[in-house]
């Protein structure tokens, strides 16, 4: 059976390394041609926000890193509508193609492995 990986990012960027590690794992899996997608939920939707300016804390812009995801073969970037509303994310990074979803469970059911760091 083909395994399909969904990495869930549910914390805001820059506070800790968990999301960055999830992204590295997702890119690594994609490099081995594994089906991979990312799901942003809760404070994790802050990853998608436009106009992030983390240079002051000497970090790279996560949304700009994410904009390479489709080129690398990541199937989809999911975000749930409730979290987008809660964090008032009207404007996401323009280069990101985000699939907005209603039910997290429904998306999770499409994957054999759901990874939360």
């Amino acid at each position, binding site marked *: 059976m083909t395994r399909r990986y969904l990495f869930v990012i549910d914390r805001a960027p820059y506070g800790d390394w968990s999301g960055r590690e999830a992204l590295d794992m997702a*890119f690594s899996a994609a490099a081995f041609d594994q089906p991979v997608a990312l799901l942003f939920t809760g404070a994790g939707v802050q990853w998608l926000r436009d106009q992030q300016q983390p240079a002051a804390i000497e970090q790279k812009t996560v949304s*700009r890193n994410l904009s390479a995801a489709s080129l690398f073969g990541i199937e989809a970037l999911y975000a749930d509508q409730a979290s987008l509303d809660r964090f008032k994310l009207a404007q996401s990074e323009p280069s990101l193609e985000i699939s907005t979803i209603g039910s997290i469970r429904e998306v999770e059911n499409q994957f054999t492995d759901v990874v939360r760091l």
Partner: protein
Amino acid sequence: MPSRNNEGFLKDPMLWSPAVAEQIASESDIALTEAHWEVIHMLRDFYAEHEMAPPAARFFVKAVKQEFGDEKGNSIYLMQLFPGTSAVKVACRIAGLPRPTNCL
């Protein structure tokens, strides 16, 4: 020559110049041609857009393929241009970019 890490990568990509590229390339006995420069500039553009270098050899190939097509977007062509243990590492070093993270 701007300061570099123990693997020869520039610490600050902003301090790169074509002259720096020539010098780093010469350390690996690579004489830069037009074919090298187009890949070097593509990598620098990629870095400017995504704030990262392609994090795996396969992604390097994919990025080149997207820009220049199949004829150049293949590992044999890129390994000939940038010979060494890893074409993407050699190319990033010459392009003045940080060592690709998580480089598989």
